[in-house]
């Protein structure tokens, strides 16, 4: 009886695994094909003499206790090559001198806060505009967490589009231009566009711009870099082609302001507010406007910093996974519904099968293996065969993402490619089990109605000359 159960369990997991391999391969092939096109379209912009439909962009960036780095980041935002453009920095009740640093650097003068704010937020105490560059506005408010800060920014933003980013993210000079072109090419269909979030750790940074992209040597950072490349280049390109993107990264996404404001801004009900927003746009708009498109612009780059150590990485991954579960619960009515297109029929089932259940199965596999080893019932050749398959699939994902990177963007040195491939091979022994364990822990927390706090991300290589600062602790709803 037990043997039969194990046999069927094994068979089910094998089928699951084969489906995963096929889907992964299909996504990589689709992404590669699209990347070949991006290669030629990069730099191709065509603006007639009177182009009245070019949308303006308000860049909204929340900041909490970022006094040492905020001035440089704002300068990098203001150097972005796009018009019409404005920057709205939201100081979310910082306890350090974030506002003082901004006042001194940009010669801020106060403007009235006013009333009739569309989205309820914690109290906005002051709004400033820069005398030296009136495109910059700074909103000072009581602490309310990231979503609340972004919503405050949305309330005072002025342009048709809002780019949501973080106070410690660096945008490439042409990032908004490339995204603006996506909106301009299809103003009726496109409602949101996300860019690529790249890892700044290990890179050479001058004047808060990445001048020489490099991969950090330590495994924690290199494995995350490979993971980001797989996620963005190996996955999102393909999902975007099918109009099935479920998430635009909170570190760099551009949205139509009217839609964002009318639907209440970022949610404070989940830790995965960026995914919730993307799902909400699909959920609200696609049944009425099937032409709605949420697009990924692979050639629009933002650079951010990742946790350089395991402790903050653990907190981040638990938050992400708790957010994923929340969002799947909030938008469960989209699952397998044809009126939501590929988002409902393909992307959500994929997410449930491989993102939600994957870690559970992975951990179950490790536990069963341990039990079998202890009981001397393991069939080693079969176990080794499965192990090799897992290793090869993981490697194929990384190699596919690296190929896309090579074909379309060509940013890293050979040394970096080798490093990424090497750490990718080693991932199976430590990085993947660890992240699976954390994600299962997040599932347990959610099942017991617990939520992790926001925690902190220490400043590492990208901001090495700066002291560590805390990210705003979000008050979590129960």
């Amino acid at each position, binding site marked *: 009886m037990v043997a039969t159960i*194990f046999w069927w369990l094994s068979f089910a997991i094998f089928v699951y695994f084969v489906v995963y391999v096929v889907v992964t391969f299909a996504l990589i092939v689709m992404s590669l094909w699209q990347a070949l096109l991006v290669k030629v379209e990069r730099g*191709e912009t065509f603006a007639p003499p009177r182009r009245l439909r070019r949308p303006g962009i308000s860049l909204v960036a929340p900041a909490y206790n970022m006094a040492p780095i905020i001035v440089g980041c704002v300068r990098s935002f203001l150097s972005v090559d796009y018009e019409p453009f404005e920057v709205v920095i939201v100081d979310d009740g910082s306890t350090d001198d974030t506002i003082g640093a901004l006042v001194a650097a940009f010669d801020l003068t106060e403007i009235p806060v006013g009333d*009739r704010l569309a989205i309820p937020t914690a109290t906005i105490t002051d709004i400033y505009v820069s005398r030296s560059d009136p495109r910059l506005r700074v909103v000072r408010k009581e602490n309310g967490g990231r979503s609340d800060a972004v919503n405050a920014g949305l309330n005072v933003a002025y342009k048709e589009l809002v780019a949501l980013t973080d106070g410690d993210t660096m945008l490439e000079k042409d990032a908004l231009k490339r995204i603006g072109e996506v909106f*301009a090419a299809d*103003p009726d269909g496109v409602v949101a566009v996300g860019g690529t979030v790249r890892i700044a750790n290990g890179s050479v940074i001058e004047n808060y711009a990445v001048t020489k992209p490099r991969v950090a040597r330590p495994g924690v950072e290199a494995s995350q870099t490979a993971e980001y490349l797989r996620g963005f280049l190996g996955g999102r390109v393909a999902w975007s082609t099918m109009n099935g993107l479920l998430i635009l990264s909170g570190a760099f996404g551009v949205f139509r302001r009217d839609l964002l404001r009318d639907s209440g801004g970022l949610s404070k009900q989940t830790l995965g507010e960026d995914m919730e927003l993307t799902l909400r746009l699909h959920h609200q708009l696609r049944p009425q406007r099937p032409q709605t498109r949420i697009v990924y612009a692979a050639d629009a780059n933002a650079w951010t910093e990742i946790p350089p150590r395991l402790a903050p990485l653990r907190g981040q991954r638990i938050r992400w996974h708790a957010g994923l579960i929340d969002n799947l619960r909030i938008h469960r009515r989209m699952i397998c519904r044809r009126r939501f297109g590929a988002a409902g029929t393909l992307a959500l089932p994929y997410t449930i099968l491989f993102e939600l259940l994957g870690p559970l199965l992975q951990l179950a596999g490790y536990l*069963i293996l341990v039990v079998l080893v202890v009981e001397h019932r393991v*069939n080693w050749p079969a176990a080794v065969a499965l192990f090799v398959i897992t290793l090869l699939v993981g490697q*194929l994902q990384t190699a596919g993402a690296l190929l896309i990177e090579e074909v379309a963007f060509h940013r890293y040195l050979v040394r970096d490619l080798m490093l990424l491939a090497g750490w990718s091979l080693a991932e199976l022994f430590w990085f993947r089990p660890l992240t699976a364990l954390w994600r299962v822990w997040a599932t347990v927390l959610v099942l017991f109605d617990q939520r992790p706090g926001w925690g902190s991300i220490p400043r590492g290589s990208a901001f090495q000359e700066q002291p560590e600062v805390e990210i705003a602790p979000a008050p979590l709803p129960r």
Partner: protein
Amino acid sequence: MPLGFAQPGFPWFWEVADTVIAVLILLNLAVIVAVHGRRIREYARGRRERRFRARLEEILAELDPRTSTHGPDWLRRQVAGFNELERPLAAVALIERLRPASEEQRQRILELLREVGAVDLLVRSTRRWLPWRRALAVRTLGWVGAAETVPLLIDRATSDRNRLVRESAVRALGRIRDARALPLLGDLFRAPGPVGSGVVYDALVSFGPAAESTFAGALRSDAESVRVAACYGLVAVAEPDTVKNELEPLLDNPMPAVRAAAAESLGQAGGTALPPALARATRDEFPAVRKAATVALGSYDDPYAVELASNALLDSDRDTAIRAAEALVRLSRRPAAATQAAQVLAETDAWPVERALIFDSLGAL
């Protein structure tokens, strides 16, 4: 991992596992070879490419009579000798050369390119297998501006299986501005889908007044998005009087997005007498329409606009109130409305006015 429990007696597993492992190894090898192969190829080509780029400078110098030293026959031989690596490089370099060129220089370069067979080469490249090669050829033809390639570009814009190639073809037609492309662009504009509506819009706007009838006709489309785009298109290419005649009736359109676009476009046209329909639009039930109409008030040198903008300071929509104050500041610079607008600005203590005056003092309005 539970498959570790599988016994050698299960032949299906071993057969499948062997095959899966073999396929995965091959795929991994193929991808790794592709990644590093590109690097190796690039390294091997590097010197060749650098040599070619140096030669390309010499070739491109032939396009300018002031720097030409060899003559068309030499140039023809060079163009005919371009290989697979060199053609895309030459196309990109040609675009960069054409980008800053005057119309007269472009004509001269075009004649020379025709003479040496480069245009024929580009035409052949529009049928290549790789979409990016087709798109690049189409794009280069647009920059070159060869009118004889318009039928080909129309064909690519309608029948190419790849959307980006179709869009490149539409952009190229916008650059060439040949009247034969207008019917196709009109069709694509009225029925968006095969090509992004914004791409077609841009191409049509580049035709200037010749596209006026296309935009005017599209104002009566059933599709909301087409009407909206037509409003912006019309104001970009038509005279202000035409814009007013065509767009004023649209302020009574049942679609709010169309009313908002019409109001915004009437603001772009501007004038002295405020259209009555625009005045009504400042009291529309939809905030987006009120906002667009309020912005437009600043473009009409009419005291009545001051009164309406003053009322809009109390609008329930924050954006509209802010725009009303900005409109008042703009009106204070116009001859007929200046006195009244200045008086309102001086007397009111509404925060949007205070805000607008600060921005105005910073030169941001």
